[in-house]
């Protein structure tokens, strides 16, 4: 299965006389010889998870494949151990703003940021936001805090791929970018009526 995934898309794009298998072997060889581990950014990070491989083509995988990935990723979500979805929005804001962590300059024991502002508009006060993701301004105000909405948002932050297989958004919980505690704080930042996300 894995083999099929990785080779088929390549064969389609080929315009010259190299067989897909050879080309893929050459690609792997190139990647392997081109990188070195540095600090916490070890070389094994190059190896792909199945879904990462499936989502590495210019064209989106088939709808059936996307569904299969989403079902698989849904199983990775860990719901809050004490049943509480939200924490402290003030600490959540710091996590949303910080884009630090997991590069070869970072230390293994340093707290990671969520980097949410790299991709999302969130509060009424912060104008330095990216646009890779949709605006989350007034998130709690617009969506309410029903248990379904809390659950969906928790799941999305834990593993965005469970809802959108090839999403550009990282798997904050599943990939251990953020801790459960940090995700609660970010959740509060999105939902708390006092949070600048919901209040100018």
């Amino acid at each position, binding site marked *: 299965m894995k083999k099929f995934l990785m080779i088929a898309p*390549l064969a389609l*794009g*080929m*315009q*010259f006389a*190299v067989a897909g298998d050879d*080309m893929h072997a*050459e*690609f792997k060889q*190139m*990647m392997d*010889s*081109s*990188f*070195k*581990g*540095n600090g916490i*950014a*070890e*070389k094994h*990070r*190059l*190896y*792909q*998870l199945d879904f*990462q*491989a499936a*989502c*590495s*083509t*210019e064209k989106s995988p088939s709808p059936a494949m996307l569904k299969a990935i989403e079902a698989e990723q849904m199983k990775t979500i860990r719901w809050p151990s004490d049943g509480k979805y939200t924490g402290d929005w003030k600490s959540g804001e710091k996590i949303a703003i910080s*884009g630090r962590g*997991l*590069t*070869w*300059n970072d230390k293994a024991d340093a707290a990671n940021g969520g980097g949410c*502002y*790299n*991709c999302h508009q969130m509060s009424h006060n912060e*104008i*330095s*936001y*990216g*646009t*890779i993701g949709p605006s989350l301004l007034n998130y709690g105000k617009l969506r309410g805090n029903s248990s379904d909405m809390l659950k969906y948002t928790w799941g999305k932050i834990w593993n965005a*791929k469970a809802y959108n297989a090839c999403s*550009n958004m*990282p*798997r904050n919980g599943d*990939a*251990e*970018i953020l801790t459960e505690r940090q995700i609660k704080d970010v959740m509060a930042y999105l939902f708390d009526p006092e949070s600048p996300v919901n209040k100018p």
Partner: protein
Amino acid sequence: MKKRLTLAALAIVAAFTAPAAMAEGSAADGIAQYRAMLAEGNPSELWELAGEDIWKEKRGPKQASLEQCDLGKGPGVVKGASAALPRYFKDTGRVQDLESRLMSCMETLQGIAPENFVKGKWGKGEMEKMEQIVAYVVGQSRDMKVNVDMSAPQMKKMYALGKEAFFYRAGPMDFACATCHGQDDKRIRLQDLPNLTKHEGAAAGWGSWPAYRVSNGQFWTMQHRLNDCYRQQRFPEPIYGSDVTIALSVYMAKTANGGTVMTPGIKR
């Protein structure tokens, strides 16, 4: 001379730090801003001037200059050379970008070992000299057209490998180059991200590097740019001059073909 450059650099810092202007700025505004800044003087002139001297200087164990270095247009021809790189070189049997080609020239002509760069530090020792030479060489293609010859089969293969690398997702954040550079009109925080999969974006992105970076007062080569993007991608570190960096460069340069060379650029 030095004074004028310093003043120009200050004006540039001011232009880049005006937050509201950046927030609303479109790509077109960016280009207009860039041209205005160039009119004020580009601080990388200092690197260019130093680089020209180093190019002509007899250096290394073999005490030779780089004036016999063939960047693809014949020994010693610098004018227009970087606009046509990367290209396939028969003598090394490799597709090379400017920096890996310069490494070969330094090794064969001057006896300066590639380890100086592969294990070197940005801005230090031989690497600083490399950066200055790069500034000089790319300045000699300014305002020309990106003109990469894709006819060699080796180039076609590197393009295909580069394209695959561009979409290759891995690491703890599942990022590929395409995550940040695969769509139009996106940005991270306030930094505009060119869509490198299309001609317009590739021309803007590829065509304006190497560049002087106002935020840290450094001159960054394309290898350095790619290195820092892979850092942000949370990948392991690409080796200086490695094939993945050259393959990506072929992918970007081919997509940029016909666009205008604006090097050395000026960046945030």
